[in-house]
């Protein structure tokens, strides 16, 4: 094992990968527990006891926290981002290698804090991943379990923030000569934008969570109101604003890397340039600019003034435009392409469909009248799982299948990967369309036993079907685990540029700095085909000018 003190971005990225996958598995198992309860209310878990109402609240709290803070962004930004960014821009390392190391170990410390909460007398945090006060103060969730969980969020947010600063500076300062902004792969742009959002909005999370911790530990009254406010009180609504001012940009942090990856992969595997690259970049920038201006659609039912409500409704609906442009550009990249259905490409296509549906189901949540009906129902849960879980997970699979040869020097089984990705996409759709339907029929979220309500009773068969599909989805992930395990055990060597593309991580072999001459998707260009007899050319590869040079290269 490399030294624990390593600052090498590739080593740390692989550490992020294993740790992140571990947390993803933990979060996924928690989801299975929730689905078990909703399918078989009151039945003992396999090999254990029945879930209690209190236990249920702990499970959905940990599930949300784990997935949002400890799985998706550490995997997409920490693992993939840290690994590919220097390689894609032609840099030797991240801008601050010691910061990379610090970020990772702070992430590990946060995980330790999170797991420690399981040993508290009253158990782990139970206020939901959103931790609304006063429920998340000592009144609603006594004991040090919730405190440890809130502290863990603070610590992991710090890790993310440091990583984001590192990535932003790396992209700004460490690009190789000739790697102009508009020659960057879309993946780099998306990671860059995601990191800018983290830098801007994580402080809001610090404030919100910090004040909750202060109320819990130091007896302050930022969020204590109502009957508790015996000596002047605070306002829990302030938390809602501060939390969602972070929380909404956070969902773009999670989806942006997926957008960038899909944009690149559809170009590389259609063997043609990305359609209207510039508009894709500007669309992502527009989302970044608007993301902090739409957050209060999470507060439509919290008593916002009508003026604010209308403003946020308009802005939220407007932010759908850049997302539509992204999707259309992906579609038009595929159009007239020469589509190779490799495992990364299938993952990207699956992500496209899952995100496409997820995105449009967000529209009624952005309009006040429809949101007031759907708020806190499973429609919301279906919507954000399609976008934040399905699309991001498929993007992660795409990245893993795509860069596995570079990360580990050996090949995954391509057929196994294709099957895994297609099955996962189909099952993601099945499970979360099921939730959309249940939410439309009125089922609320975070309910230990929704069938208490007569108007929901008839949804038990639907919930059972959703749970069975979810269990199947979990089992299908065994294909990924098996694939990775067998690849790492067999260590079958792989060619230097298995996907035959021009980006620097595959084409730049020497230790000298590359001189970049062109963009990331220069594929199927006639002059390249004439001169070199292939449909791709390295970003830093010189194109021979004369027929003499062509002959010299060919020999």
């Amino acid at each position, binding site marked *: 094992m490399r030294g624990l003190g390593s600052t090498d971005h590739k080593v740390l990225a692989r550490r992020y990968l294993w740790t992140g996958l571990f947390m993803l598995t933990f979060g996924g198992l928690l989801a299975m527990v929730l689905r078990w309860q909703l399918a078989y209310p009151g039945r003992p878990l396999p090999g254990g006891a029945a879930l209690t109402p209190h236990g249920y609240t702990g499970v959905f709290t940990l599930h949300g926290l784990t997935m949002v803070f400890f799985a998706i962004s550490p995997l997409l930004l920490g693992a993939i981002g840290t690994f590919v960014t220097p390689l894609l821009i032609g840099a030797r390392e991240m801008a601050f290698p010691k910061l990379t190391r610090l970020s990772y170990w702070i992430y590990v410390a946060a995980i330790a804090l999170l797991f420690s909460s399981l040993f508290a007398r009253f158990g782990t945090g139970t206020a939901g991943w959103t931790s609304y006060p006063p429920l998340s103060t000592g009144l609603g969730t006594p004991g040090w379990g919730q405190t440890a969980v809130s502290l863990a969020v603070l610590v992991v947010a710090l890790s993310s923030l440091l990583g984001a600063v590192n990535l932003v500076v790396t992209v700004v300062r460490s690009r190789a000569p000739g790697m102009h902004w508009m020659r960057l792969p879309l993946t780099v742009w998306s990671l860059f934008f995601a990191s800018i959002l983290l830098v801007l909005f994580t402080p809001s999370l610090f404030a919100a969570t910090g004040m909750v911790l202060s109320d819990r530990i130091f007896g302050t009254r930022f969020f204590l109101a109502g009957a508790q406010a015996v000596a002047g009180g605070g306002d829990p609504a302030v938390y809602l604003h501060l939390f969602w001012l972070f929380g909404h940009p956070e969902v773009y942090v999670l989806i942006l890397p997926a957008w960038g990856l899909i944009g690149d992969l559809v170009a590389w595997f259609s063997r043609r340039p990305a359609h209207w690259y510039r508009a894709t970049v500007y669309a992502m920038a527009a989302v970044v600019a608007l993301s902090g201006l739409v957050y209060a659609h999470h507060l439509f039912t919290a008593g916002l003034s009508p003026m604010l409500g209308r403003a946020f409704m308009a802005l939220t609906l407007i932010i759908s435009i850049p997302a539509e442009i992204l999707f259309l550009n992906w579609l038009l990249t595929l159009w*007239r392409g*020469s589509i190779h259905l490799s495992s990364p490409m299938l993952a990207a296509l699956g992500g496209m469909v899952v995100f496409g549906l997820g995105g*449009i189901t967000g529209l009624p949540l952005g309009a006040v009248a429809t949101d007031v009906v759907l708020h806190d129902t499973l429609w919301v849960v279906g919507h954000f799982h399609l976008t934040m879980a399905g699309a991001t997970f498929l993007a992660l699979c795409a990245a893993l299948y795509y860069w596995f040869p570079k990360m580990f020097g050996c090949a995954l089984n391509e057929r196994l990967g294709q099957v895994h990705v297609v099955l996962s996409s189909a099952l993601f759709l099945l499970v979360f369309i099921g939730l959309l339907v249940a939410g439309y029929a009125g089922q609320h979220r975070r309910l230990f036993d929704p069938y208490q309500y007569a108007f929901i*009773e008839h*949804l038990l068969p639907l919930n059972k079907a959703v749970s069975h599909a979810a269990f199947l989805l979990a089992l299908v992930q065994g294909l990924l685990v098996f694939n990775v395990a067998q690849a790492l055990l067999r260590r079958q060597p792989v060619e230097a540029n298995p996907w035959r593309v021009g980006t620097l991580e595959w084409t730049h072999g020497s230790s000298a700095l590359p001189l970049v001459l062109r963009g990331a998707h220069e594929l199927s260009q006639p002059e390249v085909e004439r001169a070199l007899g292939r449909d791709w050319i390295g970003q830093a590869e010189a194109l021979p000018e004369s027929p003499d040079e062509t002959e010299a290269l060919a020999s």
Partner: protein
Amino acid sequence: MSPRGPLELGLPFDASTHGALVDALLAENERFDFLLLGLMVALIAFVLVRFGRRHKASPIAETRRSRMLVVAVALGIFVLIDGALLFGSERVMRTWLWNFEAIEANPQTVRIEVNAHQWAWDFRYAGADGAFNSPDDPLSWNEVRIPLGRPVHFQLASTDVIHAFALPNFRVQTEVIPGRIQHVWIEAKALGRFEIACSQHCGASHYKMRGVLEVMAPDDFERWARTASQRAGTAHDPEDPGQRWGWAWRRP
């Protein structure tokens, strides 16, 4: 209301005078979603078949025409779908959801104060004297009665954590935040017993914080309200501070 079968997956029964507007928006949107999903999948499937490995890829990134297509489709969808949601929603907000002026002036409006707490709903009517927090206020727990066809204005407070008062059959919900008073109003168009749900996680028994809203014929309601006010007056205990959780009615 008769129980629904497992495949009856539409919105809950609509008992609200104003529900039709919202339901139309939701149904329209659900149709769009299915249509767009179908279109997306069909387009991608077509593209995968038509432009497979054997097809020679076009080297041209984009043309002016293809860019205009992107802009046209994106704006088209925005205007059609987002536009429908925006204007439809605005209509709902203006005529009902965030419009309290009409009902404030209306003498027919029934006013009810709601105290949300872990894990039940307390209801308070003004009683015969028309003032809240007075001895003749009828009080009830988890059950509230309202008349058919008259506006009912709920004012809500919470004493402990954030709850949410949800009336699925009336297409409305509002979070109830300690330290604040929230407002919501409905008008029933159907008699019957409908459920009240708590839709904001508020602790271990959040799932059991269920209430019942009964819609009565207007005359039955008046009769009940009179009797309830009288009984409340006689049952009132001035020594019990727990009964005096009400507050002077606030203007929205």
